[in-house]
């Protein structure tokens, strides 16, 4: 039954490519996408009780490929279908003629859904390669930016990382003789720890690169902000591509339970968040600021995943959803702003609230949701993440939140002030109504995520989440303090700018730098896990 979730988008893509002339095909596609989203919700509620398992081809034992959908996977599938539904609405009449764009978009969706459903080690390799190849082609889609240096680096790094992953799977197959995760989990738990170190290190390097952890993240933000790349692809990139890395991290953490690695990845998450914020502060390109803040949020989620307790897990899961929604909202909105102002430099864009009122309001909603303002989704997830956490971690996490607030204060500068003259006399700026509906839906979701927060958490995760008034007020105070500190800091930002610039230059690797950091990460893993622990 699960295979139809994967085959359906691919069939939509193939049909779309083969029958281009059909007039109302776009409407049909939105309907199909909506149906897929409803099916994903139905799947989510089915998996609340039991885990749905489909053996492809009903072969006995662990011979064939087995697709499993538990609650986590169903949630991610739901998130993917929702994202692609909104993207189809957003770029409804943007790419009218290009069949290839629509074909690749739905192939990408099929690859993501496939990635979230399979537990087969080799299948993850094939699906990861398909998704990175399709992403590379989609980013380089427009003829003008085909000469993008970052697209090449993105594809090459992804292929090399996947070779590391395949080597790790080879070792695992040597140890367990099986490719299915559940089956090899049974065998791995019987093996002694010292034999697991090398496959663990190899696979974790691949996962760190895919979820853009510290040393290996410099290429992902640049790829998202390729000058003329379609903005819907960039939105999907930060919403899903990074999250698939985190999803794989969860799967492989379950597989390698014998090796206790929460300490390492906790530190990695914090470092990534801090460095991500530092990079975001020094950028001048609007899209790059958003892309680097995705890296920072990924670091924060990694921290959340590695904390003990159910609340932290629920909090980070909820943060994945709310971040995906609000970040794609911001990306799509900035896409529209750039189309009107046709410049990407943050210095030149001013007065978005005046020139594009609806888009401006949506951007405000997105910023408030990401920085965790009270009535929005981000607040709920951050609240749960910090629910039961000891003092030093509490301080670091609130410091990271302060960092994100700083970034988005800088980003919010585009809203206020008066728009420049040539934008002013284009009044009234006619905005594509499909894009506007997409953005409004997204901002509504941000708001709903916050207002019905506890109810949604209880619905999604079955955890009786009560937002205690004391905790809420405490969080509110911290938020206000950090907003004030943020505003203060932005006043004197020219002071620390030079130092930050030097730090980011040092960490801004070219292709060879990234490969070296890949090797360094592998050595770090081997030494830490093998020798020390």
């Amino acid at each position, binding site marked *: 039954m699960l295979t139809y979730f994967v085959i359906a988008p691919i069939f939509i893509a193939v049909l779309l*490519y083969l029958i281009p002339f059909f007039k109302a095909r776009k409407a049909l596609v939105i309907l199909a996408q909506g149906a897929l989203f409803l099916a994903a919700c139905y799947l989510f509620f089915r998996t609340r009780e039991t885990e749905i398992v489909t053996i492809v081809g009903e072969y006995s034992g662990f011979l064939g490929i087995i697709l499993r959908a538990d609650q986590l996977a169903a949630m991610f599938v739901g998130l993917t279908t929702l994202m692609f539904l909104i993207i189809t609405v957003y770029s409804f009449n943007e790419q009218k003629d290009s069949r290839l764009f629509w074909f690749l978009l739905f192939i990408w969706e099929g690859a993501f859904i496939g990635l979230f459903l399979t537990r087969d080690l080799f299948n993850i390799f*094939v699906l990861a390669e398909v998704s990175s190849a399709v992403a590379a082609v989609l980013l380089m889609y427009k003829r003008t930016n085909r000469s993008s240096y970052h697209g090449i680096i993105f594809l090459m790094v992804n292929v090399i990382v996947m070779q590391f992953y395949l080597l790790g799977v080879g070792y695992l197959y040597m140890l367990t003789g099986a490719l299915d995760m559940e089956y090899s989990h049974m065998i791995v738990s019987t093996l002694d720890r010292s034999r697991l170190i090398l496959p663990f290190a190899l696979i974790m390097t691949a996962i760190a690169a895919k979820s853009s952890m510290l040393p290996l993240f410099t290429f992902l933000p640049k790829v998202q902000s390729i000058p003329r790349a379609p903005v819907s692809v960039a939105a999907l990139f930060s919403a899903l591509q990074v999250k698939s890395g985190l999803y794989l991290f969860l799967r492989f953490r379950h597989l390698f339970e014998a090796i206790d690695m929460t300490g390492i990845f906790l530190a990695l998450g914090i470092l990534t968040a801090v460095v991500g914020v530092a990079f975001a502060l020094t950028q001048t390109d609007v899209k790059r600021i958003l892309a680097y803040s995705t890296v920072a949020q990924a670091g924060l989620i990694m921290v959340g995943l590695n904390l003990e307790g159910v609340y932290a897990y629920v909090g980070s899961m909820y943060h994945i959803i709310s971040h995906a929604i609000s970040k794609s909202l911001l990306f799509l909105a900035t896409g529209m702003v750039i189309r009107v102002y046709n410049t990407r430099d943050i210095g030149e864009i001013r007065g978005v609230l005046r020139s594009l009122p609806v888009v401006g309001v949506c951007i405000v909603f997105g910023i408030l949701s990401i920085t965790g303002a009270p009535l929005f989704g981000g607040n709920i997830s951050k609240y749960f993440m910090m629910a039961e956490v000891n003092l030093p971690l509490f301080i670091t996490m609130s410091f990271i939140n302060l960092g994100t607030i700083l970034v988005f204060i800088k980003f919010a500068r585009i809203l206020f002030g008066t728009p420049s003259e040539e934008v002013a006399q284009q009044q009234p700026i006619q905005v594509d109504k499909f894009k506007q509906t997409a953005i409004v839906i997204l901002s509504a979701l941000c708001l709903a995520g916050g207002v019905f927060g506890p109810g949604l958490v209880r619905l999604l995760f079955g955890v009786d989440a009560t937002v205690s008034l004391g905790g809420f007020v405490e969080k509110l105070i911290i938020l206000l303090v950090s907003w004030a500190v943020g505003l203060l800091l932005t006043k004197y930002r020219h002071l620390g700018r030079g130092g930050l610039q030097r730090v980011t230059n040092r960490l801004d690797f070219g292709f060879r730098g990234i490969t070296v950091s890949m*090797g360094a990460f592998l050595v770090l893993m*081997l030494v830490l896990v093998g020798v020390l622990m």
Partner: protein
Amino acid sequence: MIPNPMLYAILALWVFGAVCILRERRNVRVMIYLFIFSLLTSLAYFLLGSPDTAMAEAAIGAFTTIFFIVCFEKYEALKVDGPQPEESPAEKRPVGAWLKRVVAPLLFTAVIGALMLYFSPGGEVVDHLKSQYLTQFAQDVGGENAVTAIYLGYRVYDTLFEALLLVVTVLAVAHMSYSTSLQSTKQKRYLKPSVVEIAVVRAIAVVILLFGVYLIVNGHITAGGGFQGGLFIAAFFVCRFLIHNIHDLPVYKLLRLEEVVFASSVLIAVFVIFLGMTYHLPAEHLPMFQGVYMVIMNFMIGMKVACGFTILFYRYVTIERR
């Protein structure tokens, strides 16, 4: 039985080929070493007991060389940024720079290698799944070739995604290559082949086509299968280009054909394997049904790979070279 030291000698030669590629500066020689390297890897796969992979590697080695050559030719023709002497004699660089540029990475890789070999899990290899495959593949999927039975029967889900990736590549290359016009007007001609060459290549082309179909049709009995067969049918079109030096391939029609073939192969796989049709059929018809399924799937994949690689080849050789 091939003696072990012989196998180790060939693997040593294989590693020597890799070192040659590492050391060589001039791109043309790198292409030749790459071709020799891929032939040696094909031999290594064969000696490790898998003729299927060896055939795939041999055929794909030839195609990759052609794509690399065209890429290098384009780079060669574009050398605008000054007479960057490729074979510049290594002028006396200070030892410090040399240390930093060569020895440091060497040490770094050596450290990685030492750690990997130290931590590599020895001990016996667990393979009960393998014995299950070998015993059950005959009646589960049919055919005598266990490898084809696996990638067409048990793991057909993988094969569909990989066929999908091929379709994506072909579409991407056809879309992204420089000009969308079918015929390339101003065209740098390759050397005109001599009469002898045309006669012999025409004869060999027929043999290649014959072998391509042979591989597709009984891929499930002896070594071979959809991919290898498809590649050799594409090789037939390569020879066709060599003989007549023609460029009039209807790329977009072929693209649509490939799409249709891919879609139908997905449909067949869905009906036969995903729905587990093999378990609802009466027992006596099963072997015949399985055999037919395998041949059809091999044929579909073969056609798709053949169309895909022909388009890639013609796109690369005719239009990219301008």
